[in-house]
């Protein structure tokens, strides 16, 4: 009997929970203090921003918000190796990747704060907006990658999805077409173990999420998603290949959702505190700090200063968010089409009138 195909999934880890290097062939950037410090700062900023967003929601200043607590290494990992020209197609828990790709904190607040202007990115002009329907973004990302390929651009597209989202048809369809059309696309799968209240144990029979790519003939790998070095290294490799026309990749980032699904969720209803506390010991920022300290690249004073700076940046973003003038009622219709058809003019007029009251 012949074997028609076999597969194996590699798991990559360089930096363990204690902040110690446990693998050989450490990438060069891991020895670069500036790069490592920047990534530490970025992760800390994300965490501070998330905390602020939560607080604002709890005080009625913001709508539902999904934080990335404990998963900051993923977005910082791939975000730090995306170029400005690359295109990001996020899902709804992509704050880290988005901030690193040029989306402003105030824009993220506006989106979750109920204002469409939050998706009119001032800098990340080609990026798609935050996507709430599950997995639709994967197909749109495939489309973006197809456009890139069609135009012959030497850039890549990146899309992100939770492990729960990989159960959806759109995800598989996107993998399949990316594979057969050899699209310049990186699929980031954030396996944070929980899809609202459904544990990964109940999400799939696969041993890994990475292997779903095997079914599409795509290159894939699993990394420790709390290990910033592994995150960045694998993302970098995948993006370089994509830009060089070598096709798509899927990286499963194994992490843990230390927060609730969103501000509207209470995870204590379905998971044990024991498990949660255990997960905290494996979280990404602490272990990077330990690594930085081992490199003699970080002190307590650095920490205090960074926190202060970050706090100011977050405050500035919040102020920008809070001070923006209210959108006019007519904007309900003015962006519906490039040119509003005659059929809707009287509705527009009604909205205009309401705006003057």
């Amino acid at each position, binding site marked *: 009997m012949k074997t028609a195909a076999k597969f194996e999934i590699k798991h990559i880890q360089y930096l363990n929970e204690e902040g110690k290097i446990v693998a050989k062939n450490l990438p060069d950037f891991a020895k670069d203090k500036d790069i490592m410090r920047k990534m530490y700062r970025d992760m800390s900023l994300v965490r501070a921003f998330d905390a602020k967003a939560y607080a604002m929601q709890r005080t009625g200043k913001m709508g539902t918000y999904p934080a990335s607590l404990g998963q900051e290494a993923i977005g910082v990992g791939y975000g730090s190796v995306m170029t400005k020209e690359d295109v990001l197609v996020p899902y709804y828990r992509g704050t880290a990747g988005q901030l690193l790709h040029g989306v402003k904190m105030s824009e993220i607040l506006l989106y979750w704060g109920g204002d469409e202007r939050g998706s009119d*990115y001032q800098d990340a002009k*080609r990026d798609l*907006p935050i996507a709430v329907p599950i997995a639709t973004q994967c197909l*749109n990302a495939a489309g973006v990658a197809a456009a890139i390929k069609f135009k012959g651009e030497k850039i890549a597209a990146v899309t992100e999805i939770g492990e729960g989202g990989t159960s959806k048809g759109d995800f598989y369809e996107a993998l*399949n077409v990316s594979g057969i059309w050899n699209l310049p696309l990186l699929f980031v799968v954030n396996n944070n173990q929980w899809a609202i209240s459904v544990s990964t144990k109940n999400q799939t029979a696969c041993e890994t999420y990475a292997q779903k790519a095997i079914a599409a003939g795509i290159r894939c790998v699993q990394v420790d998603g709390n290990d910033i070095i592994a995150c960045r290294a694998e993302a970098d490799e995948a993006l370089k290949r994509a830009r060089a026309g070598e096709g798509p990749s899927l990286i499963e980032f194994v992490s843990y959702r230390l927060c609730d699904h969103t501000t509207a969720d209470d995870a204590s209803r379905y998971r044990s505190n024991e498990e949660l506390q255990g997960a905290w010991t494996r979280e990404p920022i602490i272990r990077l700090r330990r690594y930085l300290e081992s490199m003699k690249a970080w002190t307590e004073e650095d920490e205090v200063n960074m926190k202060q700076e970050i706090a100011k940046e977050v405050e500035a973003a919040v102020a920008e968010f809070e001070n923006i003038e209210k959108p006019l009622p007519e904007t309900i219709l003015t962006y519906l089409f490039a040119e509003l*058809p005659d*059929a809707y003019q009287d509705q527009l007029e009604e909205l205009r009138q309401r705006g003057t009251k």
Partner: protein
Amino acid sequence: MATVALIEAVNMALAYELEHDATVLLLGEDIGANGGVFRTTAGLQERFGAHRVMDTPLAESMIAGLTIGMSTQGLKPVAEIQFLGFIYSALDQIITQAARMRNRTRGRLSCPMVIRAPFGGGIHAPEHHSESTEALFAHIPGIKVVIPSNPSRAYGLMLAAIRDPDPVIFLEPKRVYRLVKHEVEDNGEAYPLETCFIDREGTDITLVSWGAMMHETLQAAEKLAQEGIHAEVIDVACVSPIDMPTILESVEKTGRLLIVQEAPKSGAIGSEIAAEVAEKAIMSLLAPIGRVSGYDAVMPYYKLEKIYMPSVEKVVAKAKELMEYV
């Protein structure tokens, strides 16, 4: 000037845009080597290459999702869904992404895309291949829905759809794909969207329809004329957004309105037109607004297809009923 049927007119329009606009491309199942199961895209892959006319894997949501993604990046994709009956898995993409991309990014990104699909009954097809569910799309803000009824309009409206900066669902009435030929000049001239076409002028009653039913409606008008009833016949063509002023002006002239649609009666385009006319032209109405439509039923298999679909006789009878209303 070419003498072409509706389906060939679509092909001509696609070819014209592929030739003149390098950002236009086609994608869909079996559209390349096979030229489409109805041969709508015949010859296009040979002419423009497999990178402009792409055969996709079999997944409708994927086709829509790809189209959306591509269109946000400066391309103008025209996707084919092989039959309207298969589009429903793509509805998520169409509604949650395509229809709102411009709005949710405040105009930063938009989707200048077309999704075209053959639809409608009358070809003795197996189940799922004959429904007219255009109302599903007309109900979604942010997309336009266009239905040509003859070759000239298929050519002009397809060009308009491709050039429109927003998503257009282009539904092709397959029953009349090859029924009638027009002389169509391949001059790249688009027809205006949100515009009704008056195919017959009259004074006694306004008949409104679109798609394949235009043929029955025009035949009915001819029969009515033989009985001294002069009907004005309007082709809505763009069922979202609708050019209501043309319809209203006609009703103000005739005082009577009959809407003919293949789709099921309830929650249909006809319901919308009736509501608008009742709202804006009630003073002109001499009789209730009439509708001749399909039944509110799952479209039957083809043995009873002709019973389901509105006939010329039904239209004539209803028109006469309205004429005799007091």
